[in-house]
């Protein structure tokens, strides 16, 4: 986005807000000059409890404040201003609140020699408040923000920051309100921004929403000299009422962004969400050193639905599509160095899942779609002797291409701390240039329980992948492989499969799956199975070896296939059906 696009967008936003703005009663204009600065403001107080205020202030020896301010007087309260201000410290702010406590505000603040040009408006009426601004800020440090808070406690905000030099052009706004209709109550807060940051030493833009218990946030940041162009929004809300004779409450928070950024010191775009019951989900696209992110669309949401104060469905979800990420070696070694896209979810730290696309050194990730989910589902009804519960964490990705001059990987991991199960799958190359083409993979950990006519519980972790190709590029030293491993009982049972190449080559069309956990059937019969299983299939004709191994306590088995096409497996565990069968076995079908 550029400033020319921001201005009409901002005008549209202000026009929308102005149309919603209604009236007020008493107005007060105030101004003052001190030894250190100047302030000018206007205030409107409606006879229905609405209040709106606009103020501009500046400090410093050479400060200047030029403003046109107006407070409305036609039935609620509204305030607006068009202000140009400069000084050592400058602030331009406008806000409104109604008698229910629904407030909305916008502000722009700069320090260290700053200048702000801003048009702001805020209005409030009986059911809500709204505020918006179009601002251009130049300063050493600067921030522009909007905030909406409903009287019921929902909050949404946007902020745009600049540290140590640069400029911000932004159009942003927030609203909050609460309405009652057909026996239901709905309260919400929302905020959005279209912003462009040109930073000399870093900047960031973020949006946050907070429901009563759930939070969602999305943001983008650059370090060093760089730019951010972002469209962001956040909303939080709650709907409560009766569904027949059932009182219900549904609430949540959501944040999303469309962002491109570039810089010479690293950058990232991220989204995160958490509900009040321990479900969290995150997604991030980032790079180190000189690089860029070209068009990441991502978001995160969290919430829940409760009936009779019992949670029926709850969870947190994070998603991203990123067109391209390019990274380079960092001056300071971090967890990642290069380019990365990650998504992860955890359900009360009992179930966790993550998926990662990673290009080390000078590397690029193209067209990655990722998501992570942590959720709880409880289906039951008083008087009905049947129930379904499902809780877990899930993560998956499709990535078109990962390329690097050093190494790269796509991996997915699931951990079930309840049953001691793990599952892991990866497509990997290292020791030289290479690439991974079209990898589809995912991982999940969780538990499903059914009671009633049948009694079944499944508890474990699973991971799998289909990768079109892993190969070397311009290097004879590159090695690559696809590997999947599953374990249960904290590693007592484990199974893995592997295929790959060394010192140049490729792996084509590999499918791998691994799972660890237990299955218990208690009704109408009693049977149980626990352990780990891994399998792979390569359809192409190639000389890549296929290896599998299974371990059950002190027992183990191993299988080797020198070439594909082949199907190969490894199984370790115990089956109990009045008697027990246990052991480890690996095998293959050429």
């Amino acid at each position, binding site marked *: 986005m550029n400033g020319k696009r921001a201005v009409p967008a901002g005008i549209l936003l202000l026009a929308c807000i102005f149309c919603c703005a209604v009236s007020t009663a008493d107005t007060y204009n*105030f101004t003052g000059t001190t030894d250190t600065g100047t302030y000018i403001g206007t205030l409107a107080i409606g006879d229905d409890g609405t209040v709106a*205020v606009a103020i501009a*202030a500046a400090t410093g020896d050479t400060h200047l404040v030029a403003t046109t301010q107006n407070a409305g007087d036609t039935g609620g309260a509204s305030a607006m201003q068009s202000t140009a201000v400069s000084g050592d410290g400058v602030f331009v702010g406008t806000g409104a609140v109604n008698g229910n406590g629904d407030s909305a505000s916008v*502000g722009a603040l700069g320090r260290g020699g700053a200048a702000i040009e801003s048009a702001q408006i805020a209005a409030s009426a009986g059911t809500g408040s709204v505020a918006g601004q179009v601002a251009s800020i130049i300063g050493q440090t600067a921030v522009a*923000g909007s905030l909406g808070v409903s009287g019921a406690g929902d909050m949404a905000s946007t902020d745009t920051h600049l540290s140590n030099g640069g400029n911000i052009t932004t159009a942003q706004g927030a609203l909050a309100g609460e309405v009652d209709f057909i026996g239901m109550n709905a309260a919400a807060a929302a905020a959005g921004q279209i912003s462009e940051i040109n930073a000399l030493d870093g900047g960031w833009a973020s949006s946050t929403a907070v429901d009563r218990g759930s939070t969602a946030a999305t943001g983008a940041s650059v370090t060093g000299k760089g730019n951010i162009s972002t469209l962001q929004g956040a909303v939080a809300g709650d709907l409560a009422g009766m569904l027949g004779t059932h009182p219900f409450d549904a609430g949540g928070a959501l944040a999303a962004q469309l962002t491109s950024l570039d810089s010479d010191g690293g950058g990232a775009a991220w989204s995160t969400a958490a509900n009040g019951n321990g479900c969290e989900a995150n997604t991030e696209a980032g790079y180190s050193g000189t690089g860029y992110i070209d068009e990441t669309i991502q978001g995160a949401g969290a919430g829940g639905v409760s009936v009779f104060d019992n949670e029926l469905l709850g969870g947190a979800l994070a998603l991203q599509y990123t067109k391209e990420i390019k990274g380079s070696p960092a001056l300071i070694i971090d967890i990642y160095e290069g380019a990365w896209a990650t998504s992860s979810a955890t359900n009360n730290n009992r179930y966790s899942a993550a998926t990662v696309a990673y290009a080390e050194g000078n590397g690029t990730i193209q067209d990655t779609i990722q998501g992570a989910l942590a959720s709880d589902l409880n289906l039951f009804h008083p008087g009905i002797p049947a129930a379904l519960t499902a809780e877990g964490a899930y993560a998956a990705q499709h990535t078109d291409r990962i390329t690097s001059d050093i190494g790269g990987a796509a991996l997915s991991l699931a951990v079930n701390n309840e049953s001691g199960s793990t599952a892991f799958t990866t497509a990997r190359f290292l020791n030289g240039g290479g690439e991974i083409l079209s990898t589809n993979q995912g991982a999940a950990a969780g538990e499903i329980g059914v009671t009633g006519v049948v009694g079944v519980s499944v508890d474990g972790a699973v991971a799998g992948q289909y990768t079109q190709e892993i190969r070397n590029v311009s290097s004879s030293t590159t090695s690559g492989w696809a590997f999947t491993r599953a374990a249960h009982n904290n590693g007592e049972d484990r199974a893995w499969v592997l295929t790959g190449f060394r010192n140049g080559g490729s792996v084509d069309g590999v499918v791998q799956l691994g799972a660890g956990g237990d299955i218990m059937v208690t009704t109408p019969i009693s049977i149980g199975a626990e352990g780990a299983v891994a399998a792979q299939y390569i359809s192409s004709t190639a000389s890549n070896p296929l290896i599998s191994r299974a371990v059950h306590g002190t027992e183990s088995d191993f299988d080797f296939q020198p070439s594909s096409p082949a199907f190969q497996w490894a199984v370790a565990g115990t089956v109990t059906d009045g008697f027990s069968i246990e052991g480890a076995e690996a095998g293959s079908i050429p």
Partner: protein
Amino acid sequence: MKKTSFILVAGLLALIMTMGFACADPSIPATPETQGISIAIAAQATGWFQEDQEVSWATSTGPLGPALGYPNPTIPVGDGLFIYWPGNVVLEETLGIGNSSRGGVLYETVYSESTSGVAGTIDYAKQFATDTENKAQGTSNLEVQRGIVFTTDSVGRLVSSENLVLDSAGQFSLLSESFTCPFAPRVNEILPQFCNRVEMGSDLDISGGSVSTAVSERFVSSTGDYPVTSDYRIRLAGIGDQPADGSVSAFMEVQAREGLVGMIARIPFEDPDMGTFFLLNPGLASELRYGELTSAYGEITLFEKDMHYESGVIR
């Protein structure tokens, strides 16, 4: 011996009273430099004895003067309305040279004693201590204990008066600026303005008897978590089987004026450096006047009175 019926009754009765009073002060933090003064007196004399003491101490969150500063940044807009915008760094700098982010608070206390024993034998003991440091519950900024025994076989008299005054006033302020305890009452974010005055003391004029008094006061504290307290106790009795002969009185006067800040509007802004806008309409919400004097004349077997003043948000 001619006495009025009231004096007769007073002489026959032993007066034992306990008085209590409570309202709201946030205390005041100590100045960077503090002082401590302590005095111990023990005297046994026949003939003439005189003790005069006066302590006056005023302390304020800003420069001492008749006006209490509004918390920074505050903008009066007319009609008794105030814009208060705590946390906004630009407005704080614009409006805040020398002003505190906490509303101005002033405490002033005066303690005085004047005692003379004429034509008799006096045993006089006194412990006096004042300390301008922050004090927690159970400690005092001012503490005085006196014990006096006076006898005469002629026309000798023991005359003594003692006064303790605590005057406090404060502007509205953010409640969080004054309290550490996270469980402090949060019914309102703004601590209202207040203006309280309590005065306690005693006067006696006897030809023989024993008297003890105790004074303590606390109003300097780093936090408003501790209530402001002021205590005065007097006990007058005869010696042996002989009642004290003369007069004694003890009094307590309180004027407590408590404000209420009408919060017309509260608008938070996104960044902490932009602060939170408050539109306030402060006013007087409660005014309580209390006056009480207890006197006894004649042959006084026992006169005992215990007065306690306590003022704070957390009590």
